[in-house]
Every structure is written in C-alpha cells, then in structure tokens.
C-alpha cells in the first residue's frame, strides 16, 4: 500500500527581486507513472514591507506527464491585521488543467502588506501519464521588489496516492 507523505518546511524560504517562478526547496514530491494522487498544500507566506502591487504568485509544476488534473484554492488574499483573520477577504477559486500544471501557469497574484501574512490551502487531484517526475509548488514575487517575500516554516505539502475512475 502506498504511503502518504507530508513535506513540512522547517525553515523559512526568502526570495527578493524575482518574478520567475521557481520550486520551493521543501514543498516537492516524487510522483509515479500511471498513479493518481490527492495533493494538498497548506501555505503561509508574507512580505517584509508594505506593497501595493501583487507580491506573491504560485503555480503547481510537474516534470512528468499528466492525464488529467484539477483543483482549487482557498486563501486569505487580502492584508490581515494580525495575521489570522480578516473580514473582507475574497474566496478565489482556481481550476486548472493538466496543461496548466505542466507549464506552471496560470499563477495567482495576491497582495499583502507590512507585518502581515496570508494563509492558503491549495488542493489538486491528478493522474500521472507514462512519465513520472517531480511535483512541486513554485512561487515568486508577483511584482519584483527588493523587499523580501517569504514562505514560512510550518507550510506543508501532503501527497497521497489514490484510486480514481479512469
């Protein structure tokens, strides 16, 4: 029986002055050819200074081939006063296809400000094709800034093989 995995970040990852999506060094997993998976990322990210432009974007990326994929996100996508609650946030849903995942697009841009951070659950279900590979959460700044964008320790990527109808 396949064993589910949980990759949990034990340290923050910081990026500056880049809008180029790149794999998070911790939030990755190896997927096997022909298998189906349920994947969930619980994410916490933030910025070191006030920004008024989209400053975080993300995408799934898979180096192998996919038969199908779909998913959604639930995210605090507005500045939050003390980092755990806001009253005017917007529920954004993102539905993507296998092609979107293999090309690492589309990315979603959200805004935060000084001293606050946002949280999210990103989920997807997929079936790998003939080629297995590395699945990862990619992220970058939405707009390049010298101010740090951070994905915090404690964020995790859960991967579990499942059986779905073909």
């Amino acid at each position, binding site marked *: *029986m*396949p*064993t*589910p*995995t*949980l990759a*949990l*970040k*034990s340290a923050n990852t910081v990026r500056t002055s880049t809008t180029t999506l790149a794999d998070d060094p911790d939030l990755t997993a190896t997927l096997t050819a022909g298998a189906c998976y349920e994947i*969930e990322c*619980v*994410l*916490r990210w933030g910025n070191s200074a006030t920004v008024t432009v989209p400053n975080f974007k993300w995408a799934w990326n898979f180096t192998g081939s996919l038969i199908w994929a779909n998913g959604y996100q*639930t*995210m*605090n996508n507005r500045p939050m006063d*003390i*980092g*755990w*609650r*806001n*009253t005017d*946030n917007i*529920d954004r849903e993102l539905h993507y296809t296998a092609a979107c995942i293999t090309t690492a697009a589309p990315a979603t841009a959200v805004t935060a400000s000084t001293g606050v*951070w*946002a*949280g*999210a*659950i990103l989920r997807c279900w997929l079936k790998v094709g003939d080629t297995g590979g590395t699945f990862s959460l990619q992220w970058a700044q939405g707009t390049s800034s010298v101010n740090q964008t951070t994905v*915090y*320790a*404690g*964020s*995790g990527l*859960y991967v*579990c*093989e*499942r*059986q779905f109808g073909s």
Partner: protein
Amino acid sequence: MTLSALWTNKIYKTGDTSRTGTTLSDDPDLVITLTASKKYRVRFMVLCWANATADFQFDFKAGGITHGVVHAYGNLTCAAPGSSGPVISHMSWPEANIISGTNNIVMNGNNTTTTRGVICGTAVFATASSSPGTFAFRWAQGTNNVTAAKVYTGSHFLWEEF
C-alpha cells in the same frame, strides 16, 4: 482495495455538546493526543451554532509543536438561507498562535437554530522531541447568554501521523 490513508485515525462526535460561558476550552471529543517527533496532518469539519447575542468563539490549540499552520474556512456570519450571506471567510494560525491559544475568532450567531455554522480546513504541524500535548478545537460563547452554544454530532477530526 489499495487505497492508502483511509483515515484510520478519526474522531466523529457522536453526540452534541452544549455550553454557556465565554472561556475557551477543549471540545470533549475533538482532541488528539500527540506523539513526540512526528508530523501531523489533521482535516477538520465542525458544525456549530450560537444565537445572535452569544455568538460562537473558537480557536485551535496544541502543546509541544515546533512549527505548523492551521488554515480554516467557514461561513462566519451564519447568515440565513436566501439572505446576502453566508460570507466565506478564511483564517490561518501559525505555530505561535496555536501553542499559545491566542487569536481566537468569533463567529456571528443566528437566532434560527437550523442556520448553523461550519468550519472546515487542514492543520499541518510537527511535534517536539519531548512532552507533546494535545491538538484540540476549543470553543465557547462570544458573549455570555443563557441559551447554550453547540457543536453538533458529526463534527470530526481526520488525521494522519508521519
């Protein structure tokens, strides 16, 4: 059947719990005893209710964790069906808040008992090498009221230990 992770670790409330008072305390059922040096993923769903005077207050608390995140979403306004709500709100807690049991949230109540609140989400965290405690859903009334707030049968924790 070859499905993995069939939620062998699960708690389903088999009876409603009613409370008055504004002091947060663990739900008697929605509590997990943690093991040292492990990683956890906990999926939760809580069905709850409080009247519009009392409101419903809640958070998550864990002892002996080193890093983690809880992210939840729910209909915090508990609005009546057919009205402008319910509003979907999203809430996150980092390990510091989970350990300290601070940053509780108050969900607006509703005087219609069938208009219930729901809180869903996932927690991921790692436990320290010694003396882990419990991971619990805590709740209370937001304001004292003689009509008890409730957490209903069927609310649950499903978790995996790594």
